[in-house]
């Protein structure tokens, strides 16, 4: 999400380059880094493996200067493309403002493109974003290679919803800046602080015009202004018409790391449980409390052996249930209170030590029978 800082008068947006492995996301960033003026760019940070494959993300901050009195900064991220890096790929998408999908135009990579697009959709959904509501630009990369699929074929396979799309070659450098400019404009237009969405009557950006105004080095490409979205589209894209209500996953409500379970009262001794449930179960002919025992004997044993049995025998008055109920320990009560700071504190595990309430008679007393 866009970060707006009134104190330093800065607006900061996050743009993620997504796509299958080896489709040229990092190369995109490297090209941008090599071409933009030095005062605009920050350091390109690459968290990559020894073989130069992205491990976590590449990061390139870009400061395009002051717009409407606000220093406007973009953070360009790439994700690792390999399928098995999905965990880290998902992390990079957190708080994304705009996505550039870099597709590989080679025919044998089409399955990977589609898989990656589906994966993007899934990962965004986990953050509560919808693919249709985010600004997305799709880039058909590697158009300089021989035998690649044409833009029409790529469009038919990957872009049914008519996102802005560009032919590009990250190694030769065409189409890279068009893609970037388009996504930056889309993101900036959405970077509104108020609750009102963009006006649907106002076109967000005119990438077709942008693409036409910048002469493309590849003259052989038949269709150059590649954004095919018709101006007379009956409905504006959904991100223009609807305020986006991100449904935060439940995990966002951070539960405290340690949640003490409300301590269940300890189970009563087996013989007590049996006797307590006896009245119901005696109706069943199969019930036998203990081998050879009758219900009356059980009852007598319960009275004589359990402390509460004293009350049942009628020798002393029985206290109310609130006294007999086991009180939850004060710790658990404090933790159960919502927002209590005690819940955040790390707590020791409950002690397993048995509470010795009565002392055993010494050996010599027992030996000689002295009380």
């Amino acid at each position: 999400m866009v970060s707006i800082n009134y104190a330093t008068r800065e607006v900061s947006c996050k743009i993620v380059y997504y796509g299958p492995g080896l489709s040229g996301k990092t190369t995109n960033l490297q090209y941008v880094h090599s071409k933009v003026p030095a005062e605009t760019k920050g350091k390109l940070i690459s968290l990559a493996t020894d073989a130069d494959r992205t491990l976590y993300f590449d990061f390139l901050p870009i400061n395009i200067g002051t717009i409407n009195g606000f220093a406007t900064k973009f953070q360009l991220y790439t994700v690792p493309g390999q399928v098995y890096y999905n965990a880290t790929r998902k992390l990079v998408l957190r708080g994304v403002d705009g996505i550039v999908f870099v597709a590989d135009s080679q025919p044998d990579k089409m399955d990977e493109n589609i898989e990656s697009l589906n994966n993007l959709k899934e990962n965004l959904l986990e953050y509560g974003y919808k693919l249709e509501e985010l600004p997305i630009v799709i880039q058909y990369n590697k158009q300089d290679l021989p035998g690649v699929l044409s833009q029409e074929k790529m469009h038919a396979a990957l872009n049914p919803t008519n996102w802005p799309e560009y032919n590009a070659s990250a190694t030769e450098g065409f189409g890279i800046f068009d893609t970037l400019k388009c996504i930056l404009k889309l993101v900036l237009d959405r970077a509104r602080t108020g609750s009102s969405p963009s006006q649907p009557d106002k076109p967000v950006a005119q990438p077709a015009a942008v693409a036409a105004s910048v002469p493309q080095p590849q003259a052989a490409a038949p269709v150059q202004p590649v954004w095919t979205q018709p101006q007379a589209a009956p409905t504006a894209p959904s991100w223009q018409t609807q305020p986006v209500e991100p449904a935060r996953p439940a995990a966002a409500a951070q539960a405290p790391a340690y949640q003490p379970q409300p301590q269940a009262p300890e189970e009563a001794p087996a013989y007590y449980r049996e006797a307590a449930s006896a009245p119901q179960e005696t109706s069943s002919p199969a019930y036998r409390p203990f081998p050879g025992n009758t219900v009356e004997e059980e009852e007598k044993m319960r009275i004589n052996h359990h402390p509460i049995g004293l009350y049942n025998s009628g020798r002393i008055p029985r206290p109310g249930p609130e006294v007999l109920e086991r009180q939850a320990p004060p710790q658990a009560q404090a933790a159960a209170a919502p927002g209590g700071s005690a819940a955040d504190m790390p707590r020791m595990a409950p002690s397993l030590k048995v509470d010795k309430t009565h002392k055993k008679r010494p050996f010599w007393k027992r030996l000689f029978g002295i009380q």
Partner: protein
Amino acid sequence: MSDDALIIYEEEIERIDSLLTKLLKGAEAKCALLVDKDGHLITRQGFTHSLDTTALAALLAGSFASTKEIARLVGETEFSVLFHQGKKDHIHMSIVGERSILAVIFDDRTTIGMVRLYAKETADDLARIFTSMNNRSRHDRPEVTADFAASAGDKLDDIFKD
């Protein structure tokens, strides 16, 4: 998502900065950064001139995000404190509220215990500020970026030319 945007005003930054300064004095640390979990730097205090704070913010947030995933794998929601020990300088990171990270960089002039103590106190105070920020009604958020895209157009063409 525009409702979710992180918006910070001067008076909040002043309060946050004064808390961070107090933390630095109390714990005798070198500098403190407050970072959004998305990787945006919110504010910084102390000796940060030699640091690339933008990149640092992005990497700290990334580090926290991956640690959170590790936590989930071992059955925790997240690890609320992270500590990196170096030869001279060390970093102590802790979670503030729901969406920010407080990172304190310190060296051997102080101890991890002191930093931890003060960072905990500061994080609690900051969390309170963030809660009040969240409760602020959406009506008093002015539209600053009304025609941002239009104003940015020429500038973008200037910067990004082949």
